[in-house]
């Protein structure tokens, strides 16, 4: 707990220091008429020209600033359209209030060119931020500037909210940047000096095109979009990172990312190789993790101690985005995106797991230890083409091609003991094999809506895919029973599996149905939509299984397991939806109620043909089901926004062929599954709730948002397990129907941020609760297993200017499994993680960071601590970086996880990284426009 105490002390100290502050009040008036000037911009800048605070004068021309830093020379700038600029310096050495009454004179000319750099203004329905009004260090990136804008919160997890609403889309000059709308790549790389202005506006959600009610323009149907408008001189540029590092225990890492863009195209390439479990498999993730931001370094982009085993990762890829039109808006798109990624991993994992399991006689304690070596090699090629002319049309086509090659070797030894610690059985399994899979898919969507021809409004989607896989695996299983030696088994089994899946899905939402049916009649404001869905799915599997006969030293075909199976599923679902909106605009806000109800009928044909006679089964189903939705949305402008919705549905399910006529494989003596041809269909009812609330007061230093969502599901005739713990120790599971089961989950979050000038304090809390009540049979006894998991995470984040970043996090998790039948045992485990992080930007070039993680677990005698520290030095005009990482300084780390299932709990400890030290050199090539922007930093005063 010491690190936590230290952080609390530091936080308290900084807050105490902060509370000793100065105050300025004053007024702005016309020098001749003494008329108060309303909406004059008063900006207070620090000695490094960074914006400390800014305000607009009130109707009386008055303003007031509190909590100004003491003993610092501050520049006060006052601007007012048409008047000359006023500036003066002030310094307050003690906590007092100074008064500043300013008389501004009109500029001499009547025709005035506005020269004031206004930090933030509304332009119609768009909020515009002027980067030139924020004086910051030359290499500051956009995100650092956003931290200083009132109403904008850059949360510790990288997400951005504006007046409480999350930015869903980030565009650069109206287009996704490097093919992605994620906020991080653009805001953590692009220098503030390259941006002409930042626009924030609500943009229509294209996924709603062609849906009824689109014309109403419901606020909930729009996405908050941030558009970074590049300066004309910065519409061409490149940036990236190349880094190599080597350390003790032969640990190494290499990262490379390079991104180039101009007005119409962007290219990004990236790659990496490491043996420190650092995740580099995905190109977009590589771009997001290797950004230029330095003041709040990404302390998670390091060797991952929580990952199982030692993984040697490699990846290389590229993305090319080309816009065929040079528009700077997001309505018009004609864009192609091509990407390729090669990745692979060579993983070595050893693990020990401890499982508790309830049985009728006495509980079992299962100890499992194993090691495995897995290699994989993947190639992914993707193509996307998007064409849109307006918000009323959308055409996109996505194609992908993937191949996966892998091989694995594993050995596993399991021993089962009873509560008296008597050994009941053991199983030794070794397995080796290889696998290959290919996947090709194409996805197309086309939507159109037309006010002049509403009968033609539609939204169509077509998906087609083909998957092929083949694998070869040899498994040797040696099961020994201590209670019934006659049941010992030794199996040496070779599996050769081939499978192919072809899937085709087409969906058509026809929103013009009302016009077609009712003509010009408005149907009392109700909207009608006729939707069709067609699905074809064909799975062909071929398994050739042979067992090695130790007597004759020869492999024999296993007739029970070798099989050919082909399953065809044809589904057609027409549905009719009825929707109605009630909305009201008031002077201060907006509120609406939305209702919808859909009635659907699933027609299904399920044909199964197999070399195993009883698996030749043709079935037809017709299920009439429904869903309903009720939503309420309320906004009070500049105050808050909230919404709540309720969802209900009824669905049906039917047992799969693999549950009716299971091909019983006894290679795993602890998991032998047997089918049941008498399984019945199940009926499911769901009710869901979702609600969100956020404050939207731009003037308030507080930003608050909270969300609550949950659902409750019940199922009649669910398929469940009847498990027999054989006297020999083997475990056989039969599929059976239960009367009903139910489950529920609830997740919630609560985030609050408080800005103190350029400092930010954030508190984030989220949690979830899962509950499941599953009937089953244990050794013939009817039982209901109740499992629940409660997990809560509290996180505190404090950023003191751009100098210090503190974070503290506490994760608490509790798992519980409880059977109802007498004689069965309940189990509980819990774990907790306390994390602390600190970053000190000692100078513009030198950064120190440290993280500490304290892990407690009910299955560990005492907690352990993972302590990592980093020192980063930037040089070569901030483009070179030397980083020293000291990982697991206390050499105490263990990989441990807890989980829960219907019969008990599991705790797993696996191998992973251990203490190492690593020195990394990185170079950040950066150029925006013809000259390097960061050296040209200076205000551009052409805002209107």
């Amino acid at each position, binding site marked *: 707990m010491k690190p936590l105490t230290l952080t609390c002390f530091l936080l308290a100290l900084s807050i105490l220091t902060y509370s000793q502050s100065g105050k300025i009040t004053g007024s702005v008036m016309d020098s001749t008429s*003494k008329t108060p000037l309303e909406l004059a911009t008063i900006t207070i800048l620090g000695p490094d020209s960074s914006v400390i605070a800014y305000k607009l004068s009130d109707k009386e021309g008055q303003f007031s600033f509190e909590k100004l830093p003491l003993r610092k020379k501050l520049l006060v700038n006052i601007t007012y*359209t048409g008047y000359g600029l006023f500036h003066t310096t002030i310094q307050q050495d003690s906590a007092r209030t100074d008064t500043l009454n300013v008389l501004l004179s009109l500029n001499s000319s009547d025709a*005035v060119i506005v020269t004031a750099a206004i930090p933030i203004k509304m332009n119609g329905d768009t909020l515009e931020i002027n980067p030139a009004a924020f004086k910051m260090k030359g290499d500051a990136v956009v995100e650092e500037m956003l931290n200083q804008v009132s109403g904008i919160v850059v949360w510790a997890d990288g997400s951005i909210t504006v007046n409480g609403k999350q930015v869903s889309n980030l565009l650069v000059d109206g287009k996704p940047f490097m093919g992605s709308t994620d906020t991080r790549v653009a805001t953590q790389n692009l220098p503030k000096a390259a941006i002409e202005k930042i626009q924030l506006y609500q943009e229509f959600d294209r996924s709603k095109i062609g849906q009824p009610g689109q014309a109403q323009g419901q606020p909930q149907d729009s996405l908050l979009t941030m558009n970074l408008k590049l300066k004309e001189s910065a519409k061409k540029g490149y940036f990236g990172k190349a880094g190599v590092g080597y350390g003790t225990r032969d640990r190494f890492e290499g990262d490379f990312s390079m991104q180039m863009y101009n007005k119409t195209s962007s290219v990004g390439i990236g790659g990496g190789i490491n043996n420190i479990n650092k995740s580099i498999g995905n190109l977009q993730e590589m771009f997001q993790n290797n950004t230029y931001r330095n003041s709040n370094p990404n302390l998670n982009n390091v060797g991952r101690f929580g990952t199982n085993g030692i993984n040697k990762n490699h990846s290389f890829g590229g993305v090319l985005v080309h816009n065929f039109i040079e528009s700077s808006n997001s*309505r018009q798109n004609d864009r192609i995106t091509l990407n390729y990624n090669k990745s692979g991993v060579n993983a070595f994992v050893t693990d020990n797991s401890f499982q508790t399991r309830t049985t009728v006689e006495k509980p079992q304690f299962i100890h499992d230890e194993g090691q495995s070596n897995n290699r994989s090699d993947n190639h992914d090629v993707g193509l996307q083409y998007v064409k849109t002319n*307006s918000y009323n049309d959308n055409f996109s086509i996505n194609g992908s091609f993937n191949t996966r090659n892998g091989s694995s070797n594993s050995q596993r030894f399991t021993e089962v003991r009873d509560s008296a610690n008597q050994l009941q059985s053991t199983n030794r399994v070794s397995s080796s094999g290889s696998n290959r899979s290919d996947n090709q898919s194409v996805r197309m969507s086309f939507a159109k809506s037309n006010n002049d*021809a509403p009968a033609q409004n539609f939204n169509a989607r077509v998906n087609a895919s083909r998957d092929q896989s083949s694998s070869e695996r040899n498994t040797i299983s040696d099961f020994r029973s201590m209670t019934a030696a006659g049941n010992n088994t030794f199996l040496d089994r070779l599996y050769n599996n081939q499978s192919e899946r072809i899937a085709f899905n087409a969906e058509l939402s026809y929103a013009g149905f009302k016009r077609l049916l009712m003509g010009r009649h408005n149907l009392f404001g109700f909207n009608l939509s006729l939707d069709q869905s067609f699905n074809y799915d064909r799975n062909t599997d071929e398994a050739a299984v042979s067992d090695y006969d130790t007597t004759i030293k020869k492999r024999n075909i296993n007739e029970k397991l070798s099989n050919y199976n082909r399953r065809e599923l044809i589904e057609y679902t027409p549905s009719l939806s009825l929707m109605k909106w009630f909305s009201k605009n008031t002077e201060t806000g907006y509120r609406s109620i939305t209702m919808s109800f859909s009635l659907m009928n699933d027609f299904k044909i399920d044909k199964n043909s197999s070399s195993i006679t009883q698996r030749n089964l043709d079935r037809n189903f017709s299920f009439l089901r429904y869903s309903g939705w009720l939503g309420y949305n309320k906004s009070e402008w500049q105050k808050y926004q909230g919404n709540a919705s309720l969802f209900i549905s009824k669905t049906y399910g039917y047992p799969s062929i693999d549950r009716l006529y299971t091909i019983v494989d006894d290679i795993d003596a602890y998991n032998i599954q047997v089918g049941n041809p008498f399984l019945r269909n199940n009926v499911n009812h769901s009710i869901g709730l979702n609600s969100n609330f956020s404050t939207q007061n731009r003037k308030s230093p507080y930003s608050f948002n909270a969300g609550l969502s949950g659902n409750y599901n019940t199922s009649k005739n669910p398929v469940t397990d009847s498990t027999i713990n054989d006297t020999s120790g083997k475990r056989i599971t039969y599929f059976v129907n239960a009367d009903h089961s139910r489950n529920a989950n609830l997740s919630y979050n609560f985030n609050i941020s408080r800005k103190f000038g350029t400092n930010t304090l954030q508190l984030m809390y989220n949690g979830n609760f899962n509950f499941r009540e599953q009937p089953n049979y244990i050794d013939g006894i009817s039982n209901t297993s109740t499992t629940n998991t409660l997990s809560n995470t509290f996180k505190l984040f404090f950023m003191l200017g751009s100098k210090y970043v503190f974070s503290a996090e506490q994760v608490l998790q509790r798992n519980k499994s409880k059977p109802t039948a007498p004689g069965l045992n309940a189990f509980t485990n819990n774990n907790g993680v306390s994390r602390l992080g600190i970053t000190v930007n000692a100078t513009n070039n030198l950064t120190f960071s440290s993280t500490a993680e304290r892990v407690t677990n009910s299955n560990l005698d005492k907690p352990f601590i993972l302590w990592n520290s980093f020192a980063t030095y930037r040089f070569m005009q901030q483009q070179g970086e030397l980083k020293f990482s000291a990982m697991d300084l206390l050499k105490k780390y263990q990989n441990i996880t807890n989980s829960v299932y219907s019969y008990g709990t599991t705790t797993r400890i696996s191998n992973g990284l251990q203490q190492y030290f690593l020195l990394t050199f990185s170079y950040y090539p950066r150029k925006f426009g013809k000259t390097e922007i960061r050296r040209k930093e200076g205000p551009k005063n052409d805002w209107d």
Partner: protein
Amino acid sequence: MNCIRGLFLIACSLSIALSTQSQVQKIYLHPKAAGSEKQSKFIDSVRFIPLEVTPDAQFTQYSNVEVTRDYFMIRNYQAKELVLYDKQGRYIKKISYKKLAGDLYPAYDLRTNQLIFFGYNSTYALTPKDQIKIEMDWSSPKNKKYFKKYSIDLNDSTFAIKKEKPEQKDIIRAYHFYDDIYAAGVIKTSELFTDSLDYEYKLYRDNKFIKGFWPYNRINELKYQYQPESISIGRTDTPYINYITRPYSDIIYKMVHDSITPYYQVVLPLENSLPQSFFTKPFKNKTEKDNFRRNNGMLLHAIHPMYENDRFLYFMVAYLYNWEAYIYQKQTQVTHKAKNIKGDSSQYNLSLLSDFGLTRNKDQFYKTQKAGDLISYFEKHKDVAIPPELEKFIKSNPPATSPIIIEFKFKN
């Protein structure tokens, strides 16, 4: 033949316009460099009309006042309510028109002293094409059902809402112009029209077309395709004299009776002027035109004249995706942006030239203000004398949300 006739008329209009161009007064307007000034340089005769405090009337951001023959009428569009006061500010009645389904809003007809609610019947969902088809065949009894019309007679103290039968003038959006003349200035193009000739501005007497101005091809006139437009009229204090402007034109015309001559030309920088291709090259479809409009939001769309006296011309400029109000000072030949004109202490720091909620009756302008704004002003400025017409009202400690009417004039 119609096409040739149309072209001939356009050529005649252009030659007349060019020949008179030299006499037209030019107003140079640079939208980015519009001037700022103190409000007292532009307006005077500020007078307050406190309204009787009643829970029925609350000031809202969008409250505006309309001056009828006998009443001040405060509109609340969002609540679909009207509150009537007599000219001394005494409360008369609140009228709610919530029960009128659809988007029906009242328009005041000075000639009949009636409020008219007219619009499409919300029982039907009509597309722009449907609307043209219906309007083309407006006299057909089966098409009457698509419209709703109600009236409130302000001569009748019951102020009852009465159902009316839509007439031709309602459907073609014609309004009373002068004497027995009605005028309509709606411009639409559609392939549904069989006859290509139409006029941008049309005069009617007894439901009969008598004269048209600025002929255009209503099937495919390039500049008017895909988007309805309208002629803008600015009434003057002198009978039979009006200002008139056209979409995509920088000329303000003067209309005396039914004779039109160019009066002012608002000269904008090249960056705000429409390119020649806009008038000569057709857009492929509505989307392309809409994209052009959004991508060129500060190009001229139309000028709306509002008021003129000897010293000032008050007008609005609609750009393709923005709009602004300006005041042209004739003596200095400088154009000021209304938003940049700030209220000063001689006018109690009230910004009266805001761009919303300003109405005019002859040479007097009216605006509503929240009582709280004035109360707090006089509380903070004890040295400023409260105007006599406000003294009793402020001493009565009215709720801050009570509306007050402010009347003022442009300096002359």
